[in-house]
């Protein structure tokens, strides 16, 4: 255990800092020294995810007459990000029409409020997405980030 880490734990034991603060400090130390705690390491690896994977595998128990669809798609995160940025090209007069249509369909949202930072956050939040569906004869569908 490093000296800094011990000092943080001492401060926590003495009640000088809260558990949250200690956790944040330890996480920051782990990032700077590279000796991350397992939970911190998991967080870092989440940030390293570069691809969206969509995998459809056929059901091995399906009969010979059933079509065996197999899909393996790997989409770079950078491509999703770049695609999302295209929304910033929507001209101001077109946004009014979009907002009206959204409102008509029950979505009270002004797309002018969506900034590039929000898009980045949205894409980052998507990294937690994991869908695993096991159907009947269709097989197994997995959507995840790696």
């Amino acid at each position, binding site marked *: 255990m490093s000296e800094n880490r011990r000092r943080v734990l001492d401060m926590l034991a003495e009640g000088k800092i809260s558990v949250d603060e200690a956790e944040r400090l330890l996480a920051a130390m782990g990032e700077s020294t590279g000796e991350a705690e397992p939970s911190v390491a998991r967080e870092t690896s989440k940030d390293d995810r570069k691809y969206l994977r969509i995998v459809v595998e056929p059901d091995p128990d399906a009969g010979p007459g059933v079509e065996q669809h197999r899909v393996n798609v*790997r989409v770079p995160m950078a*491509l999703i990000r770049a695609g999302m*940025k295209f929304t910033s*090209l929507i*001209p101001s007069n077109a946004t009014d029409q979009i907002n009206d249509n959204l409102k008509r369909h029950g979505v009270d949202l002004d797309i002018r409020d969506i900034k590039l930072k929000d898009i980045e956050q949205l894409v980052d939040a998507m990294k937690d997405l994991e869908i695993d569906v096991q159907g009947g004869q269709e097989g197994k569908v997995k959507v995840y980030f790696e």
Partner: protein
Amino acid sequence: MMRPPLFLRLRFCGRRYRFGLWLPLFLIWPLFLVGALLLLPLVLLAALILLPFGWSLTVLMFGPLLLQLLCALRGLQVDVSDGKEQVYISFR
């Protein structure tokens, strides 16, 4: 800095046909750059003309965003098959 994909690999397989293709995209990028430079004055002119209509930013930003999109294609891989036919597309 992001690098654009250098190769596009295509593979189509069926019962009666089967072919694969390696397209050297790195040969296209210099031409793309020259084309972009030649179009730049026209784009600036179009942006000036469209300024009152609110489309100038769209015209100006389209090029850089398109370039970003093309660069981001690197790593894209699509592999679809139904047991009889297969389509494989990969940007490398």
